[in-house]
């Protein structure tokens, strides 16, 4: 008997229409946990580096976290992995909502899609009955609309639906998979789903998920709930509003956007508006939010209510959470009412809320610079808001210039030429990043930007304060109840960290300390991604309810595996290394590991080299960032080492140019 997990995956071959329920090896769960960990194992074994994003041999894996479906609070995430058309590396993005627990209750840990369907289909999973059904009537429908139509069609109001919109159908490189109030957005997962001809996966489950030691597990859940309550009543002083409280984050509840609007860049990640936030804007935006926001809503079994229903005037209601709240607003130099309105269209079309606005702002900059001309934008309105709607419509349909822009700024710039590359300036590994441009290099963030393979800063940061606190007594107060640290030394690192002087950035924290800090933060994210835990109750936050000390107990009482801090740390390192191995095998090298050139004004090449060298060594990677033989053998990844040797990975320093063109093989329609 398996606990917490079901022990079965659903293998769906879309080319042949074949469906199989396949038992999984319990040993793999002990070594790689679930979610991202076992997804990575499957991607390594079954998707060789020759496979393109849009090859039928690419897999699209929907993996539930190991503890999804158990009573663990806030554990509801689906981890979706595939080869990204944009980065051509492993894409892994997560979504909250209700889909993962529902799949568990249907009796499966993962849905693995391979091949390509000849026509548009949807997958209908109801417990043991799984069907591939025609979805031609859903072509072009919005993602949220599709979910509603399918629940009605199947007469299953309790079914959960993960769906793509028009962007996914047309293989837009930053297309998302939408589900309820949540989405798996980064890396073009929706494009791969569209390429496979799958409009939606609908799930309804009515089976049991078992716990190995229920009394112990429930006691841990009670402790977490009590701590959530404590944190709600005791916000952390001295940090920005979204970091003071738990949540993923609480963007729908918090009105004070001074920090985001004045510190993040507007337009195509270039313009900083230092005195933007005024009382009048605060009043106006609060009014907008209160008029359009229905109620705050949550994901499965979580008290945080980070999402909200939003009803923009004259448009259907949709669900939103997190930072899409501001990305369209700021890219278009507009206001919150515009942002919440266009996000409705963007959610139905199914696009990533980070990449999409930046691609549109990039296009308008190219027009302004004369690299693109009016002829490229026939019929585009004059006003910024109208232009954004025009661009969004053209991108998701791949019409005219939209066909090029749909490949994201990196590939679009290459296709447009004439110096357009300069304008695709905010990418890491070919993918658009949050619009941050800062002054002084922060060594911790430098390492996270360089080496974070989820390619999103919010998915690696969180456990350690972003900046030093000016007053020593505030630091002392902060560390007093900081029991989440894996080691007491982290408290000292923070206590000694000054805003100015010798012990301030960029030289402090020292490269060695930076390694510890980055490693801890990344480890917690990787654990969350294997367990299915929302980062909003865990790795994204200072002083989170879930941490390295209680996670092993959750896993052992939930699954029955022997698990302590050391075993868990090693498991996380194992599949984190496997993620790197997949990308290494696809050609990722040191040259690819860098932040956007203009991310910081003040750079320190020697220090940066030292940081990266020290971190690579700390991680057990060689000077190219490739895991060494010793590291791989220690983690039981001997099979990775054998493969590396066979492929001559260690002698490849990445001097060869990466693939010259985008993976797109022509327009579908």
């Amino acid at each position, binding site marked *: 008997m398996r606990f917490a997990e079901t022990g079965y995956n659903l293998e769906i071959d879309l080319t042949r229409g074949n469906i199989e329920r396949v038992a999984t090896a319990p040993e793999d769960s002990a070594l790689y946990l679930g979610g991202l960990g076992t997804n990575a194992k499957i991607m390594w074994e079954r998707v060789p580096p020759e496979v393109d994003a849009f090859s039928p041999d690419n897999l699209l894996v929907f993996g539930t976290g190991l503890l999804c*479906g*158990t*009573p663990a*609070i806030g554990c509801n995430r689906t981890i979706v992995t595939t080869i990204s058309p944009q980065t051509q590396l492993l894409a892994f993005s997560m979504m909250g909502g*209700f889909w993962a*627990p529902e799949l568990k*209750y249907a009796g499966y840990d993962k849905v693995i899609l391979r091949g390509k369907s000849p026509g548009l289909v949807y997958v209908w999973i109801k417990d043991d009955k799984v069907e591939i059904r025609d979805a031609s009537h859903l072509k072009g429908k919005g993602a*949220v609309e599709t979910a*509603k139509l399918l629940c009605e069609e199947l007469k299953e*109001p309790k079914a959960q639906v993960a769906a793509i919109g028009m962007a996914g159908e047309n293989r837009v490189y930053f297309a998302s998979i939408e589900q*309820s*109030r949540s989405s798996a957005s980064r890396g073009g997962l929706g494009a791969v789903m569209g390429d496979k001809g799958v409009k939606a996966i609908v799930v309804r*489950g*009515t*089976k*049991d*998920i*078992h*716990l190995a030691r*229920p*009394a112990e*597990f*429930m006691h841990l859940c009670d402790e977490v*709930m009590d701590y*959530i*309550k404590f944190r709600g009543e005791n916000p952390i002083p001295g940090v920005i509003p979204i970091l003071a409280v738990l949540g993923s984050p609480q963007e729908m509840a918090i009105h004070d956007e001074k920090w985001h609007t004045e510190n993040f860049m507007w337009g195509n990640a270039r313009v900083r508006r230092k005195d933007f936030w005024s009382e009048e804007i605060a009043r106006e935006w609060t009014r907008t939010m209160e008029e359009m926001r*229905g*109620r*705050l*809503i*949550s*994901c*499965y*079994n*979580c*008290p945080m*209510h980070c999402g909200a*229903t939003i009803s923009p005037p004259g448009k*259907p*209601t*949709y*669900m939103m959470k997190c930072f899409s709240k501001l990305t369209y607003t700021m890219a278009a130099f507009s206001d919150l009412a515009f942002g919440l309105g266009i996000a409705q269209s963007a959610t139905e079309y199914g696009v990533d809320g980070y990449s999409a606005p930046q691609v549109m702002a990039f296009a308008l900059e190219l027009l302004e610079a004369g690299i693109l001309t009016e002829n490229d934008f026939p019929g585009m309105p004059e006003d910024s808001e109208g232009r954004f709607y025009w661009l969004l419509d053209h991108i998701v349909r791949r019409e005219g210039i939209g066909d090029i822009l749909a490949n994201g700024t990196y590939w679009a710039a290459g296709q447009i030429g004439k110096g357009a590359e300069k304008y695709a300036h905010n990418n890491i590994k070919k993918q658009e990043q949050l619009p941050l441009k800062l002054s002084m290099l922060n060594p911790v963030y430098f390492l996270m930007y360089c080496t974070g393979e989820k390619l999103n800063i919010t998915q690696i940061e969180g456990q350690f304060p972003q900046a030093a606190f000016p007053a020593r007594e505030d630091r002392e107060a902060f560390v007093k109840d900081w029991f989440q640290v894996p080691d007491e030394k982290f408290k000292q690192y923070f206590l000694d960290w000054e805003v100015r002087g010798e012990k301030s950035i960029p030289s402090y924290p020292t490269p060695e300390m930076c390694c510890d800090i980055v490693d801890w933060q990344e480890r917690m994210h990787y654990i969350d991604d294997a367990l299915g835990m929302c980062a909003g109750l865990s790795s994204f936050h200072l002083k989170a309810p879930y941490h390295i000390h209680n996670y092993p107990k959750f896993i052992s009482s939930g699954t029955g595996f022997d698990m302590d801090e050391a075993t868990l740390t090693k498991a996380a390192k194992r599949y984190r290394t496997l993620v790197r191995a997949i990308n290494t095998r696809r050609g990722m090298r040191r040259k690819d590991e860098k932040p956007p050139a203009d991310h910081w004004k003040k750079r320190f090449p020697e220090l940066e080299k030292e940081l990266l060298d020290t971190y690579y060594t700390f991680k057990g990677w060689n000077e190219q960032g490739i895991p060494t033989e010793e590291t791989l053998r220690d983690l039981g990844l001997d099979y990775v080492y054998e493969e590396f040797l066979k492929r001559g990975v260690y002698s490849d320093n990445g001097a060869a140019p990466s693939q010259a063109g985008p993976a797109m093989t022509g327009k579908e329609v």
Partner: protein
Amino acid sequence: MKDGTKSRIIKRITVNLEKCIGCRACEMACSGFHAVPKFSSTNPARSRIRVVVEDRKDIYIPIRAAGYTPSECESRNTYSIKDKNYPECGLCNASCPSRELFREPDSGLPLKCDMCESVPPLDEPMCVQVCRCGVLTYDEWEERRDDQVNREQMEIGLQSLVNRYGVEKVMERIEQFSRNVKR
């Protein structure tokens, strides 16, 4: 019972629909609590409380399973409260043929909320304990009720039986009934 009344404890859960965030923690906790041993498994499809959700209409209603009814309503009401239309089924807590709610997924047998009766008793039912948003609140009180049989009502019933079947047949059946009961 000297005064001809009997007392019983009335248990009440008050449901504040405005506060529900749709997290379904109540479903999870209910199914876990009723598993044997407790919390050895979870499965919201076994829960005796369900959150009826229509996100886009802003409808979030936790309803608890009441008794089983073999027939379904032939007509249904829609309740309009503050410009929101609530379907009657969203507010009804019967386990009935018109919906899959409140049935054991394995056997199809009806489920019924027992207010988490257990030994030792809980302070509050599980669904209320895990509801952190104040949607569900619990209270209980003692109620005393007249123990006398309402003769008038019984006579109306008997009279209609006599009208239909005649007094002899009714007497005959009552005699048979009382014999069966004695045995």
